[in-house]
């Protein structure tokens, strides 16, 4: 019976039904679009990480794994896993023209399990694609190696006992990262040839790497933990694509966190729209519920009819949403692909569809609970009074907000994939809604005090605002929250983009030189001056050990022969590793002090008490170092002390040599040291000539060519920056659409009242003026409050989650205030025109 009643009602008020479906589907479409692009970006990030590792999971050691260990690994892996085994080691490659150190990668047919190796001949090498190195005694080399020894494709080279023909060069290697750039060029050979090479035997230094591709549903983190449990030797490394280590690891983490926020913001935006619409829907149906109650229906049954109706409408709203998602999103992805160099395929996951359905169908009940319980306060007698039916104020039931709060907190954590971000965001939203409630309450109440106005519709507008305080407050909070959500992502984007952007292309290095001795420095500088090459930076490097921090031993001794856990050993090895100290008169452009004071100048032993130290922030966190801590170093037999005066952050895209510990200038200047130098981008021929000259004159100085990997990092940085831009723009559009549906909904509720004004003799100009005044006051004030709060929330999220310097932009929130106000006014104006056109009688009949 309930279903029949609900259906009959729905068909009778089909116009309202269509209106509801249209508006709700707008909000849901925004949510689905954001989720789809979010998933596409996350897939892209995960895909890149897997390509860098060339697998889902890797188990590696600087020795062969024993049969026992391998058995343990394979029994832990899920069935259906695919394996590839590779070796990595340094060796001397020689030919008649000379010899050179190379990094050998010995692979099998399954390599790479993910990603592509592009060869200069045009071949794209993936798992199980034909590899000529596996079928003949041949080798693929990095192109720079040809120039270094004077070889060409087709030449023969020797590697241990092997004679190999160079058949191709590597054009692009997805496993190569900036961090993995080494002193030697890579070459690829067939793993099966290793026994004949004579290079791998007792005493050889190599990495044996077992790569695995696991079924898609596998939880790689859990698998990693299980493998750690199986493998007792801490010297065996187990990596997943997430932990393999990348140049941009921290920034990728930030991007993932940002995408998590995007997911929550989109959820809140659509929830905001849905909640508001449901509230309007139930508000409009209260009269019917009261009628049904007078006809003998139980309260619960009456509510059931309308919950069922709302659920059906919600379900119907998901149809156009999903239609849009499946038809339009791929086209949007292609459009973006044609405008930029990035291919992005928006994906609508089952989870997105489920959340969408949940919000549309069941969300109505949960978010409308505070409103639904008012049914118990319904006075049927009111049905017979002449005034427009309204729900009585009744008693306050604050607990009714609890299910919504719990639901959105849970969804926030789930969407962000992080307790930290989910909780921070949910907390911020509670703060924001309370703040907006307070500001809105004051605004609505003070609107009622504006009585000395000349124009009647001005007086009427403000009085009307304060008279319908509840409804005014609801739209105020909705608009304010919308303004806040719209502004958060673009503001965080500004701050995060600053992390990714390169200050200037002219500061991007192409060569790094290290092991420059004191006495070689002048000669190298002269060589550079002769070729008009201006170094980007020169950093002295002094080796030291940290002995004590605040009098406590810093290094970890091995007690009772073994370390208890992997972590304990890792920490000990890290601490006992020694540190490269450096000094400079001032911080470089890529460094920012996040806490403390800059260096006071050159150290003067006559005046200064103790040398000053600057510590890189993440190192300080890892080692638990604070400003004011006194550190004692052993600088090659000499002990010195220093006091931490600042913590500094180093920009990832600076590509400059950076150090965990900087010592005040004037302290280490005479200590034994060597230098690292970065050289700017230069023509390939100039770069190659300079490398040859260096090899002849200063053979100990290693020159690393980073031009190729820097380009890759810059491309990644650009991609990240662009991703932020895209998501912020999508969030803006979604936000405005949601606000559009809220304002439209609100105005439709006022048709009866506006119609009364028309009947009383108000001109259409006065009707329009009345509604425009009301909305300009509410929308401008709510948008301003929301935008202001968004600055606070963005600043806090940036501080707690992203830890980057906040880039405040004034125009962005102000522009959003203007757009929201104008948008509200436009919708209000258009709606008032509609009302003027409509027959007064039909509205009276429909709405009384």
């Amino acid at each position, binding site marked *: 019976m309930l279903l029949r009643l609900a259906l009959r009602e729905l068909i009778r008020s089909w116009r309202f039904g269509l209106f509801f479906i249209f508006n709700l589907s707008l909000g849901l479409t925004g949510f689905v679009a954001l989720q789809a692009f979010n998933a596409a970006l996350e897939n892209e990030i995960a895909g890149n990480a897997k390509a860098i590792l060339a697998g889902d999971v890797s188990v590696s050691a*600087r020795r062969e794994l024993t049969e026992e260990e391998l058995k343990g690994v394979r029994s832990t892996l899920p069935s259906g896993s695919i394996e590839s085994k590779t070796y990595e080691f340094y060796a001397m490659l020689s030919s008649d023209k000379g010899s050179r150190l190379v990094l050998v990668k010995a692979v099998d047919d399954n390599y790479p399990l993910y990603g592509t190796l592009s060869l200069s001949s045009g071949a794209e090498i993936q798992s199980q694609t034909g590899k000529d190195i596996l079928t003949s005694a041949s080798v693929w080399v990095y192109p720079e190696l040809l120039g270094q020894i004077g070889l060409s494709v087709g030449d023969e080279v020797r590697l241990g006992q092997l004679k190999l023909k160079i058949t191709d060069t590597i054009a692009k290697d997805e496993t190569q990262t900036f961090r993995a750039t080494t002193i030697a060029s890579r070459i690829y050979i067939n793993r099966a040839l290793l026994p004949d090479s004579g290079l791998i035997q007792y005493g050889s230094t190599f990495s044996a790497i077992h790569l695995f591709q696991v079924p898609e549903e596998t939880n790689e983190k859990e698998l990693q933990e299980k493998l750690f449990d199986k493998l007792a030797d801490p010297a065996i490394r187990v990596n997943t694509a997430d932990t393999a280590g990348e140049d941009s690891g921290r920034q990728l983490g930030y991007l993932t966190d940002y995408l998590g926020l995007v997911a929550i913001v989109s959820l809140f935006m659509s929830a905001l729209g849905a909640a508001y619409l449901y509230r309007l829907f139930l508000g409009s149906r209260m009269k019917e519920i009261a009628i049904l109650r007078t006809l003998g229906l139980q309260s619960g049954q009456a509510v059931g009819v309308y919950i069922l109706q709302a659920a059906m409408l919600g379900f119907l709203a998901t149809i156009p949403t999903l239609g849009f998602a499946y038809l339009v999103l791929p086209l949007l992805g292609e459009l973006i692909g044609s405008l930029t160099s990035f291919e992005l395929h928006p994906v609508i996951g089952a989870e997105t569809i489920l959340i969408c359905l949940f919000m549309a169908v069941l969300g109505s009940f949960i978010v409308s609970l505070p409103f639904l319980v008012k049914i118990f306060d319904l006075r049927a007698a009111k049905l017979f009074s002449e005034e427009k039916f309204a729900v009585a104020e009744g008693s306050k039931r604050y607990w009714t907000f609890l299910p919504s709060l719990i639901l959105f907190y849970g969804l926030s954590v789930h969407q962000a994939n992080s307790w930290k971000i989910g909780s921070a965001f949910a907390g911020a939203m509670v703060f924001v809604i309370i703040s907006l409630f307070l500001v809105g309450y004051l605004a609505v109440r003070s609107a009622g005090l504006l009585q000395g106005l000349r124009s009647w519709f001005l007086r009427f507008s403000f009085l009307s605002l304060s008279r319908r305080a509840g409804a005014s407050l609801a739209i105020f909070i909705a608009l304010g929250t919308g303004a806040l959500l719209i502004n958060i992502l673009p503001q965080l984007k500004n701050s995060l983009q600053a992390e990714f952007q390169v200050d200037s292309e002219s500061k991007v290095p192409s060569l790094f030189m290290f*092991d420059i001795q004191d006495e070689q420095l002048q000669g190298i500088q002269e060589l550079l001056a002769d070729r008009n090459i201006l170094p980007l930076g020169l950093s002295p490097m002094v080796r030291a050990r940290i002995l004590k921090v605040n009098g406590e031993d810093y290094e970890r001794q091995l007690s009772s022969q073994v370390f208890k856990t992997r972590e304990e050993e890792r920490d000990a090895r890290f601490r006992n590793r020694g540190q490269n100290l450096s000094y400079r008169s001032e911080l470089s452009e890529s460094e920012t002090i996040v806490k403390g004071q800059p260096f006071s100048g050159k150290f003067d*032993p006559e005046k200064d008490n103790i040398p000053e130290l600057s510590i890189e922030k993440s190192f300080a966190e890892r080692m638990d170092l604070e400003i004011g801590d006194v550190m004692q170093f052993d600088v090659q037999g000499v002990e010195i002390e220093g006091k931490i005066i600042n913590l500094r952050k180093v920009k990832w895209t600076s590509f400059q040599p950076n150090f965990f510990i900087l010592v005040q200038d004037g302290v280490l200047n005479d200590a*034994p040291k060597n230098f690292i130098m970065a050289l700017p981008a230069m023509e390939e021929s100039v770069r190659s000539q300079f490398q040859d000259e260096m090899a002849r004159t200063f053979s100990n100085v290693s020159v690393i060519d980073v031009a190729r990997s820097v380009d890759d990092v810059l491309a990644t940085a650009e991609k990240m920056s662009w991703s932020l831009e895209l998501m912020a723009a999508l969030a803006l559009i979604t936000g405005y659409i949601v606000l559009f549906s809220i304002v439209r909904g609100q105005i439709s509720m006022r048709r009866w009242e506006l119609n009364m004004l028309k009947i009383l003799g108000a001109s259409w100009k006065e009707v329009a003026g009345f509604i425009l005044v009301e909305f300009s006051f509410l929308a401008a004030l709510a948008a301003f409050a929301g935008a202001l709060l968004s600055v606070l929330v963005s600043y806090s999220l940036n501080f707690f989650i992203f830890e980057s310097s906040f880039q405040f932009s004034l125009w962005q929130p102000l522009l959003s205030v203007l757009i929201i106000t104008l948008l509200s006014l436009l919708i209000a104006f258009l709606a008032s025109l509609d009302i003027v056109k409509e027959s007064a009688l039909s509205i009276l009949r429909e709405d009384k």
Partner: protein
Amino acid sequence: MRPFFLLQNKSAGWTRAISGFFFIIALTFSASSSWAQKKMIVLGDSLSEGYGVAKDAAFPAVLEKKLQAAEKKWTVVNAGVSGSTTASAVGRLKWLAKSKPDVILLALGANDGLRGLKLEDSEKNLGAAIEYAQKEKIRVILGGLYMPPNYGKDYTDQFAKMYQSLAKKYKVTFIPFILDKVAGNPKYNLADGIHPNEAGHRIIAENVFESLKGEL
């Protein structure tokens, strides 16, 4: 290992003099004040520095304890610098010679080999360091090394011969392979397979001690 010079003494409240000038004076003072002790400086790389192990577990510190246990009054100073090549030998030696050591254990060259540098240049650098030490009347002990087999037979043979010919040319005390019994054995190395762990350092100290106990 007792530091041969302590620049800081909070309890005494001395002026914290760390400029180069004070530093050199202090080094000299330190050398003369400890006349009863003889001093050996280990001029090496990460193998000497004790990369990954505590300072007291690195072989120079273990060697000092062994020498003292054998009632030999020797101080062993660890001047190992991770990543250093033979190119740094003379420059560092000039600095370290200011503290008037009696013996230098020259244990450099591993990074030259691992980085595939020209061995003629490495030999020249080590030769220059030995010549400088001999001119300063510092006795030289040459610590020899082998390259791992993956570098190929030609290169590893040439590398091993470099030390032999230097030892012969300059007539210095020679330890053919200070990593004997350690290199290549996972039991005595860190996870990187190159750097000795605590047990490995104890064996190296034993290797050096056995080679030198009659000499010192």
